[in-house]
């Protein structure tokens, strides 16, 4: 498993970025994805956007928790 991704297979990493941002990857996948992330600017950018969205979710949680 290298950090190099061909363009044709990159959609797979995009899905991983989303799952990673949601803490929903399996542990073994986290290791693989992080290795890829270190070598892929596109995925880092993708992950930043995913995280911005995920960072908003706790706001929804606070209201649902009873306010």
């Amino acid at each position: 498993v290298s950090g190099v991704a061909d363009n044709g297979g990159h959609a797979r990493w995009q899905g991983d970025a989303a799952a990673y941002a949601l803490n929903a990857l399996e542990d073994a996948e986290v290791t693989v994805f992080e290795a890829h992330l270190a070598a892929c600017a596109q995925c880092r950018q993708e992950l930043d956007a995913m995280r911005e969205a995920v960072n908003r979710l706790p706001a929804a949680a606070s209201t649902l928790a009873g306010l």
Partner: protein
Amino acid sequence: MAALRLKSRRTDATRSAALHKRSDGELIVLARGGNADAFEVIYDRHCAAAYSLACRICGAGGAAEDVAQEAFLALWRARDRYDARRGEVRSWLLGIVHNAAIDRLRRSGVHKRRRASADGIEERAEAPERTEAEVEQCEQARHVRHALEMLPEEQRRVIELAYFDGLTHTQIATSLEQPAGTIKGRMRLGLVKLHAQLGAEESAADAERVTR
């Protein structure tokens, strides 16, 4: 969560004000050098969010408090390992809270969601430093929930199952009888839409409000 407060030296007002102007990333660096006051500022900024998220997963009360406490202690212990390239301190902390809350649910064997009890709400209202942050979160929550509701059901569901119920994509795939790749794809589509709906600009304004 009084036990959470790290024992700190008494600081003069000027020094404290200076710390409050620092970003979380800068404060973590100061905390690395043993500056407990810097860490306490991080605590003050994010304790409401940490507790709220813990409540969402564990239900309000002692368990959520324990989870938030564990998370801050874990953050303190791991402060040397913080890497700004991997995200904001707040995200990191909430990730720790999330994992700790899920671990706790798994240990107790209780997976179903719980709403905060009336006792829990009163308990939280007694802490004045939380109130302001909670009011802001309440306003934000309406917006975020609306954005969630605008998502196609299948996308909203996988995001909620992952984030709020703490399931991995594999568990979700099994539960919904869908291929893992499909679940990840739905997560991505949903997050992309949320991002577009909520806007990076506003997200930044939020972070500014909450962390400064």
